[in-house]
């Protein structure tokens, strides 16, 4: 709804200031990042991402496909990405669950892609139109087996724009699926969004083969020192073989313990080795904080208000916001825990306790949980009460 401010810029990049819905800002961020291909199945509260891209992507020469379901959606974006396209899908909890199998495939085949999950009340179909934050662990552990991914959590429409761009860059850099874990409140919130000119939008290209096809043997899964193999695209002429089976550097099945150890360890290590580069946090009043609220997504807005209310009452409260949820900002929590100054952590979240478990395993200090099953934001006052307790 609502036409946008008339702006300068290309059709792809609506440079200027907008009063924009979070879901739309995510779609515009994808376009700014160079999105070529979207495949999805509309589901509240992510539908506005689909709608926006159905309208906008054809305008810039991209392809929008409404799929038969979410299994098809993720399969389609993996195929498009393997052929070189920057690819996106967007969903909510029920669809996210259906995507889990092929998320593992993306990890195993090292196919970059961005998956947006706008979280709503769950489990199952739960609360379609109301907020939840219950998919945090699903994003990390939802597909079977051991692997690592990256997930970002925006707290405003502006961050929906910014972090979608970042998600594409990290996906291409590390050759992994990257998640944007939005929530209904942020997706359905309208706020000022500034879209910068093209020269201020960072783009990390995929690492590509260093030689022409056929010039010499190309090993599509032979990693460099950074643990990331250069990526050849389907149809370019390089010998490329993709499989979800454990494979060797040629991409051919190698069904033995040694090959498995090497591959699975590398897939995990390539993320942990780059963790510090992709870990983003916001820190508020941490220089002298004695009570630290660890928070993310829409809850971070209530938490920031609560911390300010606490400060007005003379309580030394601070805030650590995990903009990157995965890898979890372990070092930031550890440093605070070992500072000798912080006495307590408070973790509010619209689920029955997920991020708090991360904090609990990183500290021996008390961790006060604030949990709601979903359907509404946690109020600043209720967080304030726990800070002051």
């Amino acid at each position, binding site marked *: 709804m609502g036409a946008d401010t008339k702006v300068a810029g290309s059709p792809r990049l609506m440079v200027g200031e907008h009063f924009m819905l979070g879901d739309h800002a995510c779609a515009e961020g994808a376009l700014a990042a160079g999105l070529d291909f979207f495949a999805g199945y509309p589901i509240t509260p992510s539908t506005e991402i689909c709608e926006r891209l159905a309208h906008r992507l054809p305008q810039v020469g991209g392809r929008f496909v409404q799929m038969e379901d979410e299994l098809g959606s993720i399969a389609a974006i993996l195929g498009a990405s393997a052929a070189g396209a920057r690819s996106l899908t967007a969903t909510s909890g029920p669809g996210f669950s259906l995507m889990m199998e092929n998320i593992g495939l993306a990890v195993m085949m090292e196919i970059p892609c961005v998956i947006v999950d706008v979280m709503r009340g769950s489990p199952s179909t739960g609360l379609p139109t109301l907020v939840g934050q219950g998919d945090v662990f699903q994003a990390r552990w939802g597909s079977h087996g051991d692997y690592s991914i990256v997930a970002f959590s925006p707290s405003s429409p502006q961050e929906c724009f910014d972090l979608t761009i970042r998600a594409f860059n990290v996906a291409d850099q590390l050759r992994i699926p990257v998640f944007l874990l939005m929530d209904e409140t942020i997706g359905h919130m309208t706020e000022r969004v500034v879209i910068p000119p093209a020269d201020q939008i960072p783009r990390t290209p995929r690492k590509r083969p260093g030689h022409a096809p056929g010039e010499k043997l190309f090993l599509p899964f032979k990693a460099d020192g950074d643990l990331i193999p250069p990526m050849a695209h389907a149809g370019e002429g390089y010998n490329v073989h993709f499989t979800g089976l454990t494979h060797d550097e040629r991409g051919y099945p190698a069904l033995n313990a040694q090959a498995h150890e090497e591959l699975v360890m590398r897939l995990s290590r390539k993320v942990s080795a780059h963790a510090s580069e992709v870990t983003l946090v916001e820190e508020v009043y941490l220089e002298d904080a004695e009570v630290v609220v660890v928070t993310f997504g829409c809850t971070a807005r209530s938490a920031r208000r609560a911390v300010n209310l606490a400060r007005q009452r003379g309580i030394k409260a601070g805030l650590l916001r995990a903009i990157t949820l995965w890898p979890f900002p372990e070092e930031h929590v550890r440093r605070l825990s070992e500072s000798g100054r912080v006495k307590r952590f408070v973790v509010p979240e619209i689920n029955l306790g997920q991020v708090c478990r991360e904090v609990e395993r990183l500290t021996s200090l008390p961790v006060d949980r604030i949990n709601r099953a979903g359907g509404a934001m946690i*109020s600043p006052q209720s967080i304030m009460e726990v800070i002051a307790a």
Partner: protein
Amino acid sequence: MASKVPMTNGVTQVRIAGFGGQGVILTGMLLGKAASLYDGKEAVFTQSYGPEARGGASSADVVISSEPVDDPLVTNPDILVALFQEAYVRFRPLLREGGMLIVDDELVHADAGETGMHAIPATRMAEALGRRIVANVVVFGYLVGMSGVISRDAAIKAIESTVKPKTYQLNLDAFSAGYERARGDRAS
């Protein structure tokens, strides 16, 4: 003549409530956009997404402040605009004490004890302009003129940058009708 912008601790919470099709969502969008992009303020706009939203009750919430708005929720509105009876019954108890109540008095029958209410026959005024559909923009003009929560200039810029060019004049006329009515009501 009242001149103070309704607010609590520097924050103005506005709820505009009607039924689907009355354009309350666009009204909220215009208000937030005007504040955020053209009036140097911070604003967050949210809307009800209850299961009843399609065709049923619909409400738009806007929080406006000179500071960044952390909490997007309207809990106790400083300004309540009620455009049908159920919205009045449901949300009137939430209005902050001393807050501003605006109703379309041809669609809402207020309680006998209601005082300080601002009434505008927005739907009839829109019909007089030739298009019932702009009643929401008449209300927008009245809201801006009565509360002063955003400037007239910012409101007009928001309309201009939002509506289709061929409907701009109609929308501007609707806004002006509401705005001038508020000026008259404030002077009297």
